[in-house]
Structure formats: C-alpha cells, structure tokens
C-alpha cells in the first residue's frame, strides 16, 4: 500500500473492501433465511441495523453542511471523510426497500382492520398509511441523495479546478440544505421509529435521533482516522490536535444526547400521563430495564467521565475504545427504541440482530472503502488546507 503525500492518494491496494463485501453478502444471505423462520423478527432486526447505518451516513451529511456553514478551518482535513460517509446514502436508499416490504410486519397502522377498530389510529390514518409512508421515504432519500451528491461533486471539482467559488457554492447550498435536513430527519425518525408504537408521541424525538446520529458519525469517523493512521496514512495531516477537536465534539454531543434523552424522559415521568408513560413503562418491563440502565450509564455517564479530561482526547487507544463503545451504545439505543414493540416483555436477542447488522455493515464498509480509495483522502486544493493541518486546538 502506497500513500502519496502530494496527491493524498493511496495506490497499490488491489481490491479495497473485498473482505467486507464477502462478509456483507454472506450475512445478508444468511439473514434472508431468517425470513422463512420468523419474518417479524427479521424485519425488526433489519430495521435496527438499517437505522444504525443510515443514521451514521446522515451524520456525514450534517457534518459536511455544518462545516461549510460555519466556514470552519480545523475540519478541512477531515471533510473528505465526512463526504465519503454521506456518499453512502444511495446505498442506504437501496437498503430501505426491504423496510417497505416489511411494513406489514413492522407497523400496526398498516393493517386496515386494526385501524378501523382503533380510534386513535383512525385519526392518524391521513398521515400513517402505507402509500404516504412510501412516498415520504422516497422524498427523504431523494432530498438526501440530491444534497449529498451535489456537495460531493462541488468538492471533487474543487480538487482539480482550484476555484474557491465552488466552496462558496457549497456553503450556499448547505444553508437551505440544513433546513431540509432538519425536517427530513425529524419525520424520518417519526415514521421509522416513533410510529412503531403509533399511539405514542414526543415532540423531541427527531432531535433525539439527530443527536445519536451525529454522535455515531463522529465515532465512526474517529475509528476511520485511527485505522488510516495505523497504516501511516494522513498521520501528519490529521494531527493529535484534530483528535482533540473530534474528541471535544464527541464529548459535547454525548452531553447533547443525554440532554435530549433526559428532557424526554423527565418531562414524561413528571407529567405522568398514562398515554405517554406507557412507552417508558414498556422499556422498564422485565429485562428491558437492564437495557434502559445500560443506556443511562453506557451512553452517557461512563463515556462522559472517560472523555472529560482534556488530554485524553489526544490518547489514540482511548479514543478508539470510546468510539467503538459509542457505536455499540448507538446500536443498543436503536435496539431499545425498536424491539420493545416486538418483544414487549423482555430482551430476546436473535441471531438475526447480528446478521442484519453485519450484512448491511459489510456492504456499507465495502462501498465506503471503494469511494475513499478512489479519490484523494483530503480535499487537496482547499485554500485552508495548510491552516487546517497546522491548527492548534
């Protein structure tokens, strides 16, 4: 494997991502078997895996747009990695199709007989119905793919053309893009996750999902940078100072996630209205209580104290462990959001939880590596690349 420090390109790696691809295909095939064993389980497991990977790539889109909007300098060196992650949204769009197939298994509101006998669902049916659900999913992915493709194209053009106006164009697109992002990720989370328990509602839910999404993106990015660094790639470009900045962002968004999670829980607990508390009661039932507590400590308390000291954010082994840890917690978070509506009285792990995760993940990482290694790993002609490399956090 050769890394050219002038062009920031990697050459001589043969077939990048072959192994993830094999793993991905194998596990997806294995998951397919699950369809004939327990289709309900399969679709729920699949939904978790899909949401996990999709929220990471959505985080990438957010990262790139916020980079342009704030005109940040430190993140110039990592912007391309964010772009490579958001470029996986078309893959995620393809992976959304099985969810549309599984609507009947996943969502009560898709059964007209159930809707007829349920006053609340009847009221919601103008929004919660199969046709509109599919239309909305198409719209979400159309918006995300158009945005991410447009931004990526400008960035790649900038690599060869040296025109700063391309960056300004990207910033201009990011402003309305951010509004579209906020609206789509909110309703995406309402549709995909909140409507699993179609009676329940919470206004903060979209922001909660966004918090987890951006946090997992930052962790995924950090793992990726460490992976490159181990191979001597970009080690002088993405310095420990950038690790500290990434670490600070991870720390900040851990708190932000905790803030959202606490706001949601606390206001519902204090109000104590049955139609709202029921959702948390399901998650306090039997062994679900364990998962709820794991989230409190694992998704907030422990990483908070680990990442608190200033210098720890420059400690690469710790950052690696914490990033992997946070990704696991993100998966548990989604598991906790989805599964209680299928296994309502306790945790019931299935092998399909793992095969779907590895299946989508294999393809996700295969595409990611293909994209990453076919272009410069850094936006080479960004006018602030030098200042970004030299930044002191």
């Amino acid at each position, binding site marked *: 494997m050769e890394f050219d420090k002038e062009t920031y390109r990697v050459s001589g790696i043969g077939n990048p991502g072959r192994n993830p691809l094999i793993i991905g295909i194998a596990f997806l095939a294995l998951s397919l078997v699950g369809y004939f064993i327990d289709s309900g389980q399969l679709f729920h497991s699949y939904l978790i895996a899909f949401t996990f990977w999709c929220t990471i790539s959505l985080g990438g889109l957010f990262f790139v747009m916020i980079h342009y909007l704030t005109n940040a300098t430190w993140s110039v060196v990592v912007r391309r990695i964010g772009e490579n992650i958001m470029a996986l949204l078309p893959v995620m769009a393809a992976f959304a199709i099985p969810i549309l197939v599984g609507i009947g298994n996943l969502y009560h509101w898709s059964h007209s007989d159930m809707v007829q006998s349920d006053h609340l669902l009847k009221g919601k049916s103008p929004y919660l119905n199969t046709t509109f659900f599919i239309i909305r999913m198409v719209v979400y992915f159309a918006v995300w793919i158009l945005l991410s493709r447009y931004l990526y194209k400008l960035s790649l053009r900038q690599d060869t053309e040296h025109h*700063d106006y391309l960056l300004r164009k990207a910033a201009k697109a990011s402003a309305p893009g951010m509004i579209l992002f906020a609206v789509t990720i909110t309703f995406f989370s309402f549709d995909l996750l909140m409507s699993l328990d179609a009676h329940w509602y919470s206004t903060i839910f979209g*922001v909660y999902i966004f918090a987890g999404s951006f946090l997992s993106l930052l962790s995924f990015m950090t793992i990726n940078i460490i992976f490159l660094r181990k191979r001597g790639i970009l080690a002088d470009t993405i310095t420990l100072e950038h690790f500290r900045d990434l670490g600070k962002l991870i720390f900040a968004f851990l708190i932000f996630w905790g803030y959202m999670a606490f706001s949601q829980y606390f*206001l519902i607990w204090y109000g104590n209205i049955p139609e709202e508390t029921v959702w948390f009661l399901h998650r306090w039932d039997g062994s679900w209580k364990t998962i709820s507590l794991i989230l409190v400590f694992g998704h907030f308390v422990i990483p908070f104290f680990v990442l608190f000291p200033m210098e720890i954010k420059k400690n690469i082994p710790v950052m690696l462990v914490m990033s992997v840890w946070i990704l696991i917690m993100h998966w548990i978070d989604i598991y906790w959001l989805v599964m209680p509506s299928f296994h309502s009285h306790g945790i019931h792990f299935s092998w399909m939880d793992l095969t779907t995760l590895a299946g989508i993940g294999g393809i996700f990482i295969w595409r990611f590596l293909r994209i990453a290694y076919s272009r410069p790993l850094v936006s080479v002609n960004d006018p602030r690349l030098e200042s970004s490399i030299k930044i002191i956090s």
Partner: protein
Amino acid sequence: MANGTENIAEYSGTEQALDPDKLSFRGITDKISGITERRTPPVWFVAFGAAFSLFLVLLGSIGYLIWEGVGIWGLNNPVGWGWAIINFVWWVGIGHAGTLISAILFLLRQRWRTSINRFAEAMTLFAILCALIFPGIHVGRIWVAYWMAPLPNQMSMWPNFRSPLLWDVFAVSTYFTASLLFWYTGLIPDLATFRDRAKKKIKKLIFGILSLGWRGGNRQWRHYELAYLILAGISTPLVLSVHSVVSTDFAVSILPGWHTTIFPPYFVAGAIFSGFAMVVTLTIIARKIFSLDHIITLDHLEKMNKIMLLTGMMVGYAYSIEFFIAWYSGNIYEQFAFLNRAFGNYSWAYWIMISCNVLIPQIFWVKRWRRAVPVMFVASIIINIGMWFERFVIVVTSLSRDFLPANWDYYRPTFWDISTFVGSFGLFFTLFLLFIRLLPMISMTEIKGVLPQADPYHHCPGGHNE
C-alpha cells in the same frame, strides 16, 4: 474590500473581522479607556435621566404592589400567571446571549466574540436582575420572599423541592453568580489598565482594589487564562440548563400546550435568539454614539444576524413540530390548545409571534440586509417583541382555556402590569448606562489578543513578510 482580497480573508484561515490597519494596541486602550475618562457627554445625561425615571416607575409600581397586593394586576381565575412570569422568562432569555458569547463561543475558538463579549456579559447580569424582580414580587407576601430559599427553621418548613419554581431559584441564582464571576475575571486586566491610567487618587484607589493587584506578569497571565477557561467550561452548561429549568415551569405540568418534550431545547434556542437580538440593538446604539465602527465592525453584526437567523429557524422548527404532534397525538385537548392558539381569541398574539420570530428574521438570508445597520436594528427590536409574545402565547392561551369551559376567561393586563414591565427597562438601562460610563465596555485585552500583532510569528508591515 475588493472581491479578490475578500476571498483570501474568507478562505486563508486568517479570517479576521477586525481590520489590523485601523487598530493598534495603544489606539485600542485610548479609545476604550477614553470613553470613561472623557467628560460625561450630555446625551448620556439625557439617556440616564430617562432610564432613571423609568426605574422610579418600577419602584413606584412595586411599592403599590406591596401595599395593595397582586390584585392590582390583571390576573383572573384561570390565568393565575400573567405578565410577571412572561417578563421573567423574557428577561432571563435575554441574558443567555451574553453567556453564549462569552463561554460557548470562547470554547469554539470564535475570535470575533472579543469585540462584543464584555457588554453582552454585562447585559446578561442586568437582564438577570430584571428577571429576578418578577418572581420575587409575585409571591404576594413579599416580606416572606426569603422562604424561597431552603433555610433551616424551627417549624421544619421547607420549600417544595419537587417544584420547578424552586429549581428556578437555584438555576437563576447559580447563573447569576457564575456570570458575575466570569465577567469580573475577564475585567481584571482592563481594570488594571484603568488603574494605571487614572489621574485622580480616589479613582486609582478604587480601580487598584478592583484589579486585585494585577501586574500583568507571565504567571498572572497563565493563571488568568486557566481561570477564564475553567469559568467558560462552568458557564457553558449553564447556558443550556438555566432556560431548560425555566421551561420546566411549564413543561412538567400536564396543561395542553405546556406539556411537551421539546420544551427545554426549544426554550434555550429562543433565549439565545432574543438575547442576540438585544445585543444587536444595544451594539448598534453604542457603536454609533461612541464611534466604535472599527472595533465592532459590520462583520461582527453580520455574524450575530446569522445566529439570529439560525435560532429563529430553530424556534420555527419547534412551533411546527408542536403543531404537528398536537394533531398526531390524537388528543383532543392538545389539538384544541393549538388550534385555539392560532385561531382562537388570542390568535392576534400568535400571529404577532409567528411574524416577528419566524417571518421577519428570514430577511437575513440576504447578505445586503445582514449588513445593513438600520434593517438589523429594526429587525432586532421586532424579534424581541416577538419573543415576548411567544411567552405570552404560551402562558396565557393555555391558561385562559383550561379543561373546564365554565372557567374560561379573557386575560387583560392592567396599568400596573404595564408600568412594572416598562419600569424594568428603567432598571436595565440605568445599570447599563452606569456600566458604559464607569467600566471598559469592550475587552481591551481580548481584542488585542486577536490582532495579528499579538501573534508571535507576526511580521511588521514593511518587514519580511512571507
């Protein structure tokens, strides 16, 4: 600035809102210190006279309130919370911009904050003081207001620790303390400058005491900077927590329109929104009167306008999601509360809120308007009117139409509601004018720190410049 050079400034990483050619270390010290050392300008006396008169109106209104009781306000049976809580939330919210600028923007390495942080922080303190008046005088028997604090007593009577009103007492007083310390820490080097420049003995003595023996040595600077960083770290969670706690005043109840999970972040966004609007209003006046255009440039104002556009959009997001979820919930009371807001007897207030907070800030999409001082001056005032109405809509619409239609009533403020609120501006501006007259309204040390000359690798013009 020509288009070509603008690009370099924009993308070279040396982005600088200040023009180094117009600023020297000495020039900054002379300019900022000069404001307090010159003879008091007549316009200051006029402004102070007006502000102090309003302050007297506040004192008079409070005096009559204590004499007569809260019956002088327009409160009625379902609407037991009126302007007092609205004003409280509004003033606390205004304070938030100061802390955001001084703490969060500091942690985010936003160097442009140095031109505006000092008086934004001062504004925070004065706004909190104005805010604290309202819950204080609302208790009815004001002579037992100290019962709000959990003081040990022989009757073993304690405040209700489960009440968000008590959390407010803790949150806001912590906030005030932290903001005061932060502000004062930042002031120390500047106070020492004042001490060194003072010509009268008494002035030298006062500033000497206030500057705590600052000599500007290496060790002092290191301690100072570490203290500043730690205080910024402490203040940052407060920006989020204080208004989150304030939002629980409403959100922990089960009243439709109040009980919704998005309230904490939504209130924080709204607080920063109105706070920045107030900073813009005051900045524009101050930079005009004291000709500070070279220190507080259009770039600074434009950045603040961008933040207003952003936070305005965030409250717009919250308004929309609340409305959607009210429908989605299938709960007829929720649905009624929101339909009533938009189309009921207080719809005029709702649409004022929407126009001022969501529609008007959209003008800041246009760069020309983001940089037009008259436009942003008017817009910033409109935004604060809108944010006041936001709290009005939340408080009054939900209360005036509660679960029992027989209770329903229409809330109208009385003369005393208005005079107390208007009077609180008197307190705010009295303090603010005194601050401008007596203390450095812009942080001299921090401005100098972000100038290129302060960079040890900086080459003087004319010298070797790579």
